[in-house]
Structure formats: C-alpha cells, structure tokens
C-alpha cells in the first residue's frame, strides 16, 4: 500500500451524494425497486437501538434492556462523475420513525409504493411526508393478478392532493423504476417552483 498522504477532497475523487427515499408498507416492493434501478446489489445497513431510543417499548420499573435492530436496504446510481444518487428503502415498522427522520433529512423526495390490495398500508408514509413537507409521489406497484385501478381512483382512495402524481409501475423492472424516479424528480422541481412563488410558506 502506498504510504503517502493524499488529499482526496481535491478533484473529483469525492462525489457529492443525494438521496431519494422509497417508502410503503411491508412487502410492497421497496427493496425490489431499489434493486431494479441500483447499479450495485442492494446493501443493507443496520442500526441498533437500546430501549432508551424505542420509547414505545418502555416497560416502566422493569430492569430490562432490549436491543432492536433497524435494517435499511439501499442502492446507488451514479448520475455523473462527482454526483451519486442513493436510494433508501425505509424501515417498515412505524415505531422506527426516528430513523425515518434521519433518512428524510436532506432527501430530495420520496416514492411511496402502494399495493392496491392493501392501500391503507401506505397511509403512514403519506402522512409522514405530508407532515414533513417532503415532496413525494405514489408508485402503484402492479403485482401480477392484482386488481387494476386507474390513477384517479387510487388518488381518491388515498385522499391525495390532486397535484401529487400517481404512477402505475412494476418495480421489478428497471425501466419502470427509472420512470418512477424521473416522475418524482420532475414533481420535486414543480413543488420547488410553487414554494418559491409563495415566499410566505417556510421550506420543509
């Protein structure tokens, strides 16, 4: 190994990273989508929590310390030299909201994947991103044999702002996943332009 000091912060060696979140209920295809568009096999990172950080598990007065592991799958897309996009699947369980806070911090936007057979599973993600004012779109994952609805029916069922795009997709397919991401970034640009026209509204 070369034993001299170098300065990788100079030049293009250290890319700038941005991220997009892929949220939705358990088994809706978050990891499939990350895997379909990622240039690397999806990786998994974990965080371990003690009971102090998992408030809902509080067992008052009982001397017990539990450790919970939150796992997040993620992938990577090189946009160009010096710019990398990371895609993070959000942890499935609602009690890991604090992990969502970390994921959402600085994210460009989010894709909420929905399964028409279990639309209610996507409500917590939608609520979360609405509250945080993080721009998001809905990707309706069309599983084989799943009943097909059109975008307007799904928008009505989810009680969505009419400006939020609802796109039908098959997240196992790279081209489809790519279209979902393109739709999201276009939507983020629209939301940004709108918020700039209304300077009274605070940024997220």
């Amino acid at each position: 190994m070369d034993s001299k000091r170098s300065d990788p912060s100079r030049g293009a060696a250290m890319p700038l990273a941005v991220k997009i979140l892929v949220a939705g209920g358990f088994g809706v295809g978050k990891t499939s989508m990350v895997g379909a568009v990622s240039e690397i096999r999806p990786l998994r990172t974990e965080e371990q929590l003690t009971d102090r950080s998992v408030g809902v598990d509080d067992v008052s007065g009982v001397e017990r310390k539990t450790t919970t592991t939150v796992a997040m799958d993620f992938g990577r897309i090189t946009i160009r030299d010096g710019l990398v996009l990371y895609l993070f699947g959000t942890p499935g369980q609602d009690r890991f909201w604090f992990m969502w806070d970390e994921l959402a911090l600085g994210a460009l936007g989010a894709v909420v994947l929905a399964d028409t057979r279990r639309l209610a599973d996507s409500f917590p993600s939608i609520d979360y991103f609405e509250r945080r004012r993080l721009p998001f779109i809905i990707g309706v994952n069309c599983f084989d044999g799943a009943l097909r609805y059109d975008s307007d029916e799904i928008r009505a069922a989810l009680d969505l702002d009419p400006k939020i795009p609802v796109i039908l997709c098959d997240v196992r397919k790279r081209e489809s996943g790519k279209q979902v991401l393109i739709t999201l970034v276009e939507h983020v640009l629209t939301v940004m332009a709108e918020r700039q026209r209304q300077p009274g509204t605070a940024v997220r």
Partner: protein
Amino acid sequence: MSEWLDDEAGPVVRPYALTGGRTRSSREGFDLIAIIATAATSSFAPPAAGPEHLAILELCVRPLSVAEVSAKMRLPLGVVRVLLGDLLDHGLIAVRRPEPDNRLPNERLLKEVLNGLQAL
C-alpha cells in the same frame, strides 16, 4: 482483542465493545450519505487503532458513503460513526458532507439528477 477470538467463538464481542463503549463520535455529523475517503494509509494510523479502523481505511481508498461503509463492514451505523470519528480526529480520512438541509434542494442539482436518470 481479536487475537483470541476465532469465528467459532460466535459473536462474543458486542458491537460497542469495538468502540470502547462509546456510542457517540467525538464529532457531529457523519450523515448516511456523507462520502468518506481515505486521506492517509494505515501506516499513519496510531498504534491504538483497531483492526476495524484499519479495515475502514482500506475500504475507503475508493470513496464510499457512511451507509456503504456500515454495510460492507457489517457493523451498525452507530459503531461505524464512532470509528469514523476516531479516524477523522487523526486526519486519516476526508469527509464530503451532503448539501445542508436548511433549504430546498437547488434547482440545478435536481435538473442534473433528472438528466442523469433520463440518460440511464
């Protein structure tokens, strides 16, 4: 500590033993997508550096995000952040942080991402 442990011993060492029980890095930050690059090879590492410190230095010869370091090292994020803090304190790594979150992402950056996705 690893001299007397082999794989058959199983997970005897809880992850935070690698950090001497520390759960916080001496520095703030290390966002999931902060990019880490080795700034000096392991020959510059102080004698107290553990095998995990050295492994991170070898890994980040090619710059990687904090999340990738955690995944490839198979260590929880919290542990990796403490180890990265040690390495940064000794000037052994360089960090490129993502854009600050206090504003909406800038339009030029978004358009670059859009163009990049369309070109995939």
